């Protein structure tokens, strides 16, 4: 019995959270557009959220591509199909690993930082003092960070895939001796723009919205204390990772199922 009571309460709390997060995002994004004010704020956040995440994304992409090259080769060579290494690396990256791993890394690198930053602004009354200056913190603090996440994650995912393919090429062709012409030409003929590249792009847009949204909401509603901010940061990473993995299954089923 207690179980059902808890389940009901947790569900209600969850729904309340989703409602609150939706209202927050709505108030942040909907309203009179102010491009002149918004542009410098978004640019600044693009640097913090996007450019500063680039290094970890590029390095991770390179290593994952190299591992794919190595693992793919050892499997494919048994069937004499090492020519298929190119499409295998490219498709795994474009369809799955690019968007998903980028989103997971982004949640850990940029999402947690967003949550901590906004939570600390709440704790030090910076958000209150914006409000008292008649500046809406949702439009001033939340909105530019949201757009920055929204714009940068798909770009980061592309970079991840591109570097990963290069890593696979490096291991497969340069090191293990797969034929270079076959590697690229088979890849080119089997990767479909619409089916693979666009679907991967759509995935990373969806992940960008979800991860940034969770990070901003958790920061905005964090309890204004050190344990409160630390809990909110952890929740950002946990919830957005779970959301990304769950949504990835749903999207994959819709796109490729």
């Amino acid at each position, binding site marked *: 019995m207690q179980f059902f009571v808890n389940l009901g309460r947790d569900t209600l709390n969850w729904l309340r959270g989703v409602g609150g997060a939706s209202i927050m995002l709505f108030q942040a994004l909907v309203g009179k557009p102010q491009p002149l004010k918004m542009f410098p704020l978004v640019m600044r956040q693009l640097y913090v959220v996007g450019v500063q995440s680039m290094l970890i994304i590029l390095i991770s992409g390179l290593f994952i591509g190299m591992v794919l090259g190595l693992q793919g080769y050892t499997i494919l060579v048994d069937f004499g199909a090492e020519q298929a290494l190119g499409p295998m690396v490219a498709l795994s990256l474009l369809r799955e690993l690019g968007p998903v791993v980028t989103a997971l890394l982004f949640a850990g690198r940029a999402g947690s930082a967003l949550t901590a930053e906004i939570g600390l602004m709440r704790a030090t009354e910076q958000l209150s*003092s914006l409000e*008292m200056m008649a500046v*809406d913190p949702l439009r001033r603090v939340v909105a530019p960070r949201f757009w920055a996440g929204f714009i940068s994650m798909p770009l980061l995912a592309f970079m991840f895939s591109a570097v990963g393919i290069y890593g696979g090429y490096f291991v497969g062709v340069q090191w293990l001796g797969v034929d270079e012409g076959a590697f690229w030409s088979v890849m080119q003929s089997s990767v479909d723009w619409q089916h693979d590249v666009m679907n991967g792009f759509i995935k990373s847009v969806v992940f960008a919205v979800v991860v940034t949204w969770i990070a901003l909401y958790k920061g905005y509603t964090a309890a204004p204390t050190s344990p409160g901010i630390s809990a909110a940061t952890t929740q950002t990473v946990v919830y957005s990772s779970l959301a990304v993995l769950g949504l990835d299954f749903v999207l994959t089923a819709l796109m490729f199922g």
Partner: protein
Amino acid sequence: MDNLVECHDVYFSRGDTPIYEGVSLHVPRGKVTAIMGPSGCGKTTLLRLIGGQLRANRGQVLFAGQDIGKLNRSALFETRKRMSMLFQSGALFSDLTVFENVAFPLREHTTLPENIIQTVVKMKLESVGLRGAGQLFPQELSGGMARRAALARSIALDPELIMYDEPFAGQDPISMGMLVSLIKSLNETLGLTSIVVSHDIHEVMSIADQVCIMANKTIVAQGSPEELRAHESPLVQQFLSGASDGPVPFHYKASTYHDDLLGVSR
């Protein structure tokens, strides 16, 4: 007399803990009103109610005749352009320099050209003695300096109402004297209305036109400094003289000390 802020029979509670039970006060336009009271009695809360960051459970908070609790979001933001608040913690933006912090409200709400903004900011920083600290970041300031920088920011737009939450805390005697005269002169030269929350009885009484003393979830006395000095209530007298023994308890409510030490549960 014309009142800029009026509270009528305000009730407010945090969770199950009542903070106010029937607070009524008025802040005359163009005057300095001081609010005093024991720590934790809800002075900051009162400022937040006037600023519309909290809403009263019952009763009205009026600013220039408008019921703050009933305004919608955009009307509230419009109204807030006419007031400003110095937060107890200063609340400077940590990603901007002191100079940019003070310039922030000007850049947000005016279309002044850059050279005028520079001039205004320098004037405001000069008036709090921090013109040389413009390029420092808030984390490079001492507590007292941060509060003075925040004060400069809150007077940047010359609003109608300024609420100072403990402006003198952490100031040395020299800057304290300077801030006292700054608040007074802002009030006299620009005709601003000020609400000053402070524990520095002597300084506050010297500039206030009106003093309100809060205790026991309500306003226990309201009047000019002279009236309060002559007030017959022992509570007011205790507060003004700073005696630790009297009707105002120094301790947060608890079981008796004796029981607590012996481990007797309440």
